[in-house]
């Protein structure tokens, strides 16, 4: 019988993702999908003995149960949550060998953090769609039938490659989670002086923004704010100064829709007619997957492109086998 994993309880949104998702498809209307927190996702795969890119599960909040149809190594990373295999605890940022038929349960996370990643040795073997196994929720495609997983779904697993030994992601290499987040971002592409005032930009980067409950993989909504704006209106693009002629959106854009800033997530829209005042850099993007949409607050820290590249290299260096130790 082929190796597989069966979903017993799907929770509020559990999807198959891979890293870096479906790249190079913006012109065709596809945001990349992929994990909302790429750091914990990649760590979960390394813990399971997989390449960091392998298809794995993104669990939102927890309250999920799976049954392994084959012996496998399971790695968990992300938000603090009680995870058990047949009742035996697996600490977050660790992996364990689990017998065929064993049940993996993830309790609802009390935070900090909001998403838990589950890597299974061999990876989740769903069909490739345009080069990726990631679920694009907005397009209802990719992953397993283009949707979040439900009880009764059975996912095939690939062949294992590693030695299957239980591992721990070193504490020194783990990211810090909290309820107050600082996320690195660069200004623009639509900033001051053309669209917003310099004072608006100082507000954007200066204040703390509460995360709205209706945040998801499409976008993380912040709070409404009355910006000063550099223009009286949007000209031919519309009556509000946040309006511009439709243009493409960057992944991680802080898209200001009227008075409401929204950080565009991995399943966001590829284009639209609102300004993007700032853009979260890749090394900071993982944090948006851990924002708990009940009281967490975000401050943006402005970085240069050079800092953004340096930060991303540092992050890549932490996501290697050197960060693993035997558990």
């Amino acid at each position: 019988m082929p190796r597989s994993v069966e979903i017993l309880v799907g929770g509020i949104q559990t999807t198959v993702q891979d890293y870096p998702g479906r790249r190079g498809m913006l012109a065709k209307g596809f945001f990349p999908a992929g994990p909302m927190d790429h750091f914990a996702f990649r760590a979960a795969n390394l813990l399971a003995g997989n390449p960091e890119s392998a298809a794995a599960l993104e669990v939102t909040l927890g309250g999920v149960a799976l049954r392994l149809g084959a012996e496998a190594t399971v790695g968990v990373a992300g938000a603090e949550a009680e995870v058990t295999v047949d009742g035996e605890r697996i600490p977050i940022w660790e992996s364990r060998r689990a017998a065929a038929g064993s049940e993996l349960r993830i309790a609802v996370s009390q935070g900090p953090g909001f998403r838990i990643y589950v890597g299974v040795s061999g990876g989740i073997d769903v069909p490739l769609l345009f080069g990726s196994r990631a679920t694009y929720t907005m397009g209802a495609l990719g992953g397993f039938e283009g949707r979040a997983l439900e009880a009764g779904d059975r996912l095939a697993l690939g062949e294992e490659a590693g030695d299957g030994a239980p591992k721990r992601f070193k504490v020194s290499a783990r990211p810090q989670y909290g309820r107050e987040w600082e996320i690195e971002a660069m200004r623009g592409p639509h900033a001051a002086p053309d669209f917003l005032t310099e004072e608006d930009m100082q507000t954007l980067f200066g204040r703390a923004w509460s995360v709205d409950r209706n945040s998801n993989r499409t976008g993380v909504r912040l709070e409404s704010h009355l910006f000063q704006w550099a223009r009286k209106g949007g000209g031919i693009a519309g009556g509000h100064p946040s309006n511009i002629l439709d243009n493409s959106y960057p992944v991680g854009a802080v898209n200001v829709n009227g008075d409401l800033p929204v950080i565009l997530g991995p399943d966001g829209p590829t284009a639209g007619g609102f300004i993007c005042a700032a853009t979260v850099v890749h090394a900071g993007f993982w944090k948006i997957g851990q924002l708990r949409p009940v009281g967490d607050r975000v401050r943006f820290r402005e970085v240069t492109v050079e800092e953004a590249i340096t930060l991303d290299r540092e992050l890549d260096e932490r996501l290697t086998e050197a960060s693993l130790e035997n558990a």
Partner: protein
Amino acid sequence: MTEKTIKSPYPGIFYRRSSPDADPYVAEGDRVSPGDTVGLVEIMKNFYEVKSEEEGVVDALLVQNEDLVEAGQDVVVLRD
């Protein structure tokens, strides 16, 4: 008298009624049975029902309509 509580399964915004015009699901003094809905929690553009797992009488409502609740937070106290 034994005291039992109903907890919110998820974090989000708590609602006492199914729509702004509807009557509240429960009021103090109402009898509830296992599976009865006592409120809704809104998170990620979805609404989830908060259900009682026990039989009892609503003794106290611990959160107001549209209050923020955390996962596992007590929202209703039941008495026998």
